[in-house]
């Protein structure tokens, strides 16, 4: 093992190793069955910098980071940490070498306390071998003080908000005295204020000389926090630039390899009759007295901070969590929606916020994922599914949405996020909805797919579909909506017309 790695260092590592870099990775290749995920990829991280990774989903940035964090093993490539040749075999190995990854899916144990979570496997012991709780508490408190985090070390993790769990994850990574911290879309579930706090922590770590790798899809974050940015496309390394010396358009061009002419292809279409009318809708303890009208051809944007109840309103209208009071009128008819099946009978469709949790059947194939919503809509005779007809419809939808998949029998878990999202959109469009509720339709998907989905939404509105679109991305809400409803802590705080809406006005209503 050692002689082998020494030899590798001699052949391809030593020549390129450079102590200017904290972490230097060259010539990485990784194949998965059927796909080359990374091909001759390089990455160089300087100490005391925040290095953003950009790229469409499937560009290979997450795969590269998983290799660096010891989760995947590369097929080839050289790795140098502080100029020293390393080969990582497991996440633990990476941690002990000073590389920590904070995952998108948080990896904490909900029924253990914050302190126990952070020091797991490294608990301070008393003389007779029991865990020294006083010392555990003290160490955690001092760690939090250093990071300016105010969380009680004794609280159980399940009682923490997502943002605070994220902070605990970061504190845990810092507690390993890691020099390299990898953050995979850390702000996706955070509110604006929490993001600010996170950035303060990141800047603190930076000033201590740590290298931070920051995977993100959000362009404005990049310019706020990153010093350098590396772009990847289709498993290849495109280039690295100083964040100050590139523009947003430069990066998008590098990511997609083409110019995106129109980010938001919003067209003004005639707005028709009221399709959906919601009156004083409430779900006890979650949101109250929500009222609005949604017309055919209209795109109603719903803005608000995470936790404002936006998604809960959508779930209630669709019958996932039936309302505790209030009325829902569809096409002028008062309707009781007790479950999603009822909502679908009234021409509604609902793209949920969480693709993996409530959207995809990950272990089933593309066809099985697409057809599920129309099986109750006349595509079966005496219970027997009209296979050929359904396959034809799904195939057409796949082509229309340009889903990238080898064929209809590929498992959905093997598709990229953007393609998974297209499959789910296809599932709902096959039902020919009259009212379409979209919750974060473009979250975590790449720029190219995003633009396609925006175009599609515009076209649907043009065809007379009433669209309600919940989004945390300000430009998306501003760019796509005819009208914007803003929510704050379970209440509607205002409506803004397309002409008058701007970021400041929305934030004022959202923060109230």
């Amino acid at each position: 093992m050692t002689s082998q790695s020494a030899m590798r260092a001699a052949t391809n590592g030593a020549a390129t190793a450079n102590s200017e870099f904290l972490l230097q990775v060259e010539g990485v290749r990784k194949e998965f069955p059927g796909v080359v995920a990374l091909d001759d990829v390089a990455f160089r991280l300087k100490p005391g910098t925040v290095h953003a990774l950009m790229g469409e989903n499937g560009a290979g940035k997450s795969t590269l980071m998983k290799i660096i964090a010891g989760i995947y093993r590369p097929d080839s490539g050289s790795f140098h940490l502080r100029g020293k040749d390393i080969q990582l075999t497991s996440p633990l190995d990476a941690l002990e070498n000073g590389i920590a990854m904070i995952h998108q899916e948080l990896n904490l144990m909900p029924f253990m306390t914050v302190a126990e979570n952070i020091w797991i496997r490294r608990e301070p012991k008393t003389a007779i071998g029991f865990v020294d709780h006083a010392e555990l508490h003290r160490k955690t408190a001092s760690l939090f003080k250093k990071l300016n985090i105010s969380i009680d070390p004794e609280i159980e993790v399940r009682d923490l908000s997502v943002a605070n769990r994220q902070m605990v994850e970061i504190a845990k990574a810092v507690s390993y005295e890691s020099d390299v911290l990898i953050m995979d879309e850390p702000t996706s579930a955070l509110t604006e204020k929490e993001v600010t706090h996170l950035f303060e922590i990141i800047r603190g770590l930076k000033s201590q000389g740590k290298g931070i790798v920051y995977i993100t899809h959000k362009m404005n974050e990049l310019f706020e926090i990153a010093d350098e940015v590396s772009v990847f496309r289709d498993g290849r390394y495109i280039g690295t630039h100083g964040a100050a010396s590139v523009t947003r358009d430069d990066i998008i061009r590098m990511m997609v390899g083409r110019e995106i002419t129109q980010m938001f292809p919003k067209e003004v279409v005639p707005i028709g009759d009221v399709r959906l009318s919601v009156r004083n809708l409430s779900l006890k303890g979650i949101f109250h007295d929500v009222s609005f009208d949604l017309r055919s051809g209209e795109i109603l944007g719903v803005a608000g901070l995470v936790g404002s109840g936006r998604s809960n309103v959508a779930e209630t209208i669709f019958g996932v969590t039936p309302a505790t009071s209030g009325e829902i009128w569809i096409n002028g008819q008062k309707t009781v929606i007790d479950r999603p099946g009822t909502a679908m009978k009234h021409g509604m469709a609902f793209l949920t916020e969480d693709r993996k949790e409530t959207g995809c059947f990950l272990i089933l194939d593309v066809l099985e994922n697409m057809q599920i919503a129309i099986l109750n809509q006349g595509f079966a005779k005496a219970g027997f599914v009209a296979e050929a007809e359904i396959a034809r419809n799904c195939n057409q939808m796949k082509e229309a949405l340009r889903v990238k998949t080898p064929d209809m029998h590929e498992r959905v878990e093997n598709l990229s996020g953007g393609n998974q999202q297209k499959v789910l959109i296809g599932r709902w469009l096959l039902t020919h909805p009259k009212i379409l509720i979209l919750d974060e339709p473009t979250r975590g998907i790449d720029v190219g797919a995003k633009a396609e989905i925006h175009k599609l939404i515009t076209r649907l509105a043009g065809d007379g579909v009433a669209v309600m679109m919940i989004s945390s991305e300000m430009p998306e809400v501003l760019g796509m909506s005819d009208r914007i409803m803003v929510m704050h802590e379970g209440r509607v705080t205002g409506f803004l017309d397309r002409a008058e809406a701007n970021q400041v006005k929305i934030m004022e209503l959202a923060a109230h």
Partner: protein
Amino acid sequence: MATEHATKAAPHGEMQRRRKMPPEANIFVVLIGIALFFELLGWIFVKQSFLMNTQRLQVIILQVSVIGIIAVGVTQVIITGGIDLSSGSVVGMTAMMAASLAQTSDFARAVYPSLTDLPVIFPVAAGLLAGLIAGLINGSLIAFTGIPPFIATLGMMVAARGVAKWYTRGQPVSMLSDSYAAIGTWIWPVVIFLVVALIFHIALRYTRYGKFTYAIGANVQAARVSGINVGRHLIKVYAIAGCLSGLAGVVLSARAISGQAGMGVSYELDAIAASVIGGTSLAGGVGRITGTVIGTIILGVMTSGFTFLRIDAYYQEIVKGVIIVAAVIIDQHRQRKRRKA
């Protein structure tokens, strides 16, 4: 354009092979392997053939038919991500109830002296109905109270066995009519097993019922949001499983020409084992009836093979335990490999 991208990277032959080979192929090879293993040991240790004996092969299939009928229902339950621990007890309960309506008038101490010499349809219907009710209770408990299937069916397992014993205060029900006993003769149990397997193979693959069953097992939340009435569907699946246990109870009591309260003890575990060996994933969303049929036959071949080699019954159980665990380990290994891919 999209397909070009994918096929360019993938080695062509492997792609096609993966498509063509049904997932049961592996488990079928295992079955053949086990059979040949016994054949070889047979010539070495007992100087005779294991396979070249039609009578033995018949007995193997006949013996596993009852387990097989149960396993067809259990497989569907497991595909939804659930489990049914009550099947064995339901077999015992329904065997008693069916047998009590199949007694002849020659017998002075019949359970229902006024209900003897009934047409065979009555005891059969009674057995199926009793099983169906047990299944409906299982499904309703799971759908309406939200308790885990493990707990709901554990309760039913204990309760149904209690009913079986209470029904005649523990006395066996004997002196059954010839027409009832005929269900258990010739190869009828095998025919019933294979017909049941065929029906639910078709149901799982080609009907809405099947698609919903897999969808619920793959992601129950997504299934609900997609408009599937998850509770109602689960009740159906557990009712079918219960009904099939009832059918197994009828076949078993007909074969034994008596109903006994202790019938079917631990059959639920054999049925779960047959499903799992056949490739059904306890995580839900994955499984096929064809695999379960092969899994059932593997269990039968092993039992018969050990007996053939005159190996002690105690060792048989030990080896069976090892094989069940091994099957799950292999299954998880396969899943892990897939997830990495």
